């Protein structure tokens, strides 16, 4: 079965307002050197999907900058490759005021052209707030074998706090037939099989439901398509057992980032045989650890100069940490500059933040202190 990919770059932006003020969910920096879109893109490339549409909405300058021609993912191709799909607004909208899409279904309606010009058998959908390293070939094989119209990749989540509000719970029988989907609300259950929003859809079926939705004015994919057709269409759940994290808040971002300090998580994400995670190459020099630097239990990217103490941190590319500074349990995004004798605990700094000498800042694990892009403290 041949497959094309479709990535939603803005879905769930509102969950992470701090980090998406200047960028899409897709371009939220993660894990020292990545952006969230690197995960779905790499998953697709590593599963031989080389035609990928990226649906954008707003704030997508950072995304364009990150993707470039797509060559860092080997997606700069004559045939296929990466296609950025900006919002489509007709100047002659019959409904009067033209507006951007609000839902997944509307977003897909906006890229009908891309979908109908694909000649692949299936379309693989993915959001950017799902962090995992999954072999989609297995999902596609499962989809083909079961003759499904839609296969939803689901993951067992074992604590209520790890399930995001409005995440979909997918219940399927032992054969994978989905018999129920429901929107999660707090208190509903403590443990559930949730949708990762990675889906494989037979292309002809996707076209049919989009036409139907267009005709009936449907806007919501789960409510108005999946729910209505359960029992009639062949919907399957593919239970995924590997590492998966969904980022649904700034504290969730913090937790998920910090989980990279666990070797099992790093191995599950970054050390899968033949399934590397690709990202934009920045050509940073290696990181310099100066005399007097003390770094422990941290993930550090290249291009940093570290003269102070760093413990339990995620340090992105090009960060400078001055002499006498102590940083604990913090996430410092690209090119953050931390002066001398600074003390930081549970702080997230966005790109290009500047912390001047002798500042003392602290948040809490449950509420990390956030310093916005380019802000000087």
């Amino acid at each position, binding site marked *: 079965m041949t497959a094309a990919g479709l990535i939603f770059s803005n879905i769930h932006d509102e969950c992470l307002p701090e980090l998406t003020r200047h960028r899409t969910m897709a371009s939220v920096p993660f*894990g*020292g*050197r990545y952006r969230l879109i690197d995960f779905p893109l*790499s998953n697709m490339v590593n599963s031989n999907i080389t035609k990928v549409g990226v649906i954008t909405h707003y704030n997508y300058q950072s995304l364009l900058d990150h993707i470039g021609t797509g*060559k860092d993912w080997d997606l700069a191709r004559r045939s296929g490759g990466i296609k950025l799909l900006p919002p489509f607004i007709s100047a002659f909208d019959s409904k009067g005021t033209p507006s951007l899409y609000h839902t997944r279904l509307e977003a897909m309606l906006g890229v009908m052209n891309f979908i109908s010009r694909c000649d692949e058998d299936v379309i693989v959908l993915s959001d950017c707030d799902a962090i995992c390293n999954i072999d989609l070939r297995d999902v596609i094989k499962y989809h083909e074998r079961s003759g499904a119209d839609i296969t939803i990749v689901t993951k067992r989540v074992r604590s209520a706090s790890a399930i995001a509000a409005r995440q979909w719970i997918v219940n399927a029988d032992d054969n994978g037939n989905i018999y129920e989907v429901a929107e999660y609300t707090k208190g509903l259950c403590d443990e559930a099989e949730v949708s990762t929003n990675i889906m494989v859809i037979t292309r002809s079926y996707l076209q049919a439901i989009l036409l139907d939705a267009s005709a009936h004015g449907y806007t919501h994919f789960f409510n108005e398509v999946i729910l209505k057709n359960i029992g009639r269409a062949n919907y399957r759940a593919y239970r995924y057992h590997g590492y998966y994290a969904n980022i649904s808040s700034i504290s969730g971002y913090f937790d998920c980032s910090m989980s990279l*300090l666990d*070797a099992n998580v*790093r191995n599950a*994400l*970054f*050390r899968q045989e033949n399934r*590397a*995670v*690709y*990202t934009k*190459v920045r*050509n*940073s*020099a*290696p*990181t*310099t*650890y*100066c*005399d*007097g*630097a*003390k*770094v*422990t*239990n*941290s*993930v*550090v*990217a*290249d*291009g940093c*100069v570290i*003269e102070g103490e760093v413990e339990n941190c995620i340090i992105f590319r090009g960060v400078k940490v001055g002499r006498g500074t102590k940083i604990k349990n913090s996430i410092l995004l690209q090119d953050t500059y931390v002066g001398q004798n600074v003390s930081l605990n549970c702080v997230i700094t966005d790109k290009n933040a500047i912390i001047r000498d002798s500042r003392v800042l602290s948040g809490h694990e449950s509420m990390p202190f956030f310093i916005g892009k380019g802000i000087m403290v």
Partner: protein
Amino acid sequence: MYKKKECVAMLLAGGQGSRLYALTSKLAKPAVLFGGKYRIIDFPLSNCVNSGIDTVGVLTQYQPLLLNDYIGNGLPWDLDRNYGGVKILPPYQGKDRADWYRGTANAIYQNIQFIKQYDPEYVLILSGDHIYKMDYAAMLAAHKRNNADCTIAVIDVPIEEASRFGIMSVNDDGSVWKFSEKPKNPDSTKASMGIYIFNTKKLLSYLEEDEKNPNSENDFGKNIIPAMLGAGERMFAYPFSGYWKDVGTIKSLWEANMDMLGADPALVLNDDKWRIYARHYAQAPQFISKDAEISNCSITEGCEIYGKVKNSVLGVGVRVLEGAEVVDSVIMSGATIDKNAVVKYSIVDSFAYVGEGATLGADRAEGVEVAVVGAGVNVAAGENVPQGAMLYGEW
């Protein structure tokens, strides 16, 4: 078909680098790993791109497989161009002759057709033996300003080392009046860096002349430059004062790696205005464990550090496991230092494995030599590799 280029660079990358022994047993010297994530050739290639020179012929001969693969289509250096870009130029079978490159001048001579395709005014000759950051555009501007036929980049070296280099004696206006290759009694400290800019017409005529001389060694330093100087061509020295290091020996390669350490290093690679580009392989960021101890190091992506690392340069994906100790060493990409191994004053080449509890080298001191472990070598657990040892790899 081809657009005219003002200046074409020819990069001599065929050298064996025999004084690097195990490090060049399977690859050409320009492909030797440097500084954690680079290969030596990244420096001249990046300098070219940063200087606005977008057409580079890379002349390969000795063990070219890895170099060919590494350069590929030139994408990492932005040298994947429709017109120009980087081209690999191996020796080839011609209509009347098939020959290896017999010398630096002969290598260029055999590729005159390549140069002519672009009809350049100037040809820049480079070698893949040095670590330095240099603006060739400034040198070219000086060449034009002097209305020169040939400009040679020179650097001041200590007088006691001058007899290792080609030495220029220079007039006040920068013109060269004498050139002596490795003189016993040097009368100047201006050493040739092996970087030349020629006016294309002059270069081609001297190359053709040189080729007719059966006694010539077909070498720029020994033959072409003296011939041009003897004929009274306008030859100028271009003084360069930044970091420059010949990494042709184990010792100098080790030193150059160490020059990137510290907050204020002699060799600044963390430079947004003059980046050194390299081919990247998707690697996770580095991880420093809670028991790791790191001081005065350069560490790069993919590394996992559980042990102690001091005064060292670690390449991509190096693993230093629990209890291991690495001091004053260069560990190249993909190498593993297993538990409780001790590595001192050594160079460990790519994908070598140092077994549990093995010891390598000795404390750095007067009379102690660098121990070298070649690519892919497996040092058995508990083994003791003495200082100055040279272990060759099988692959």
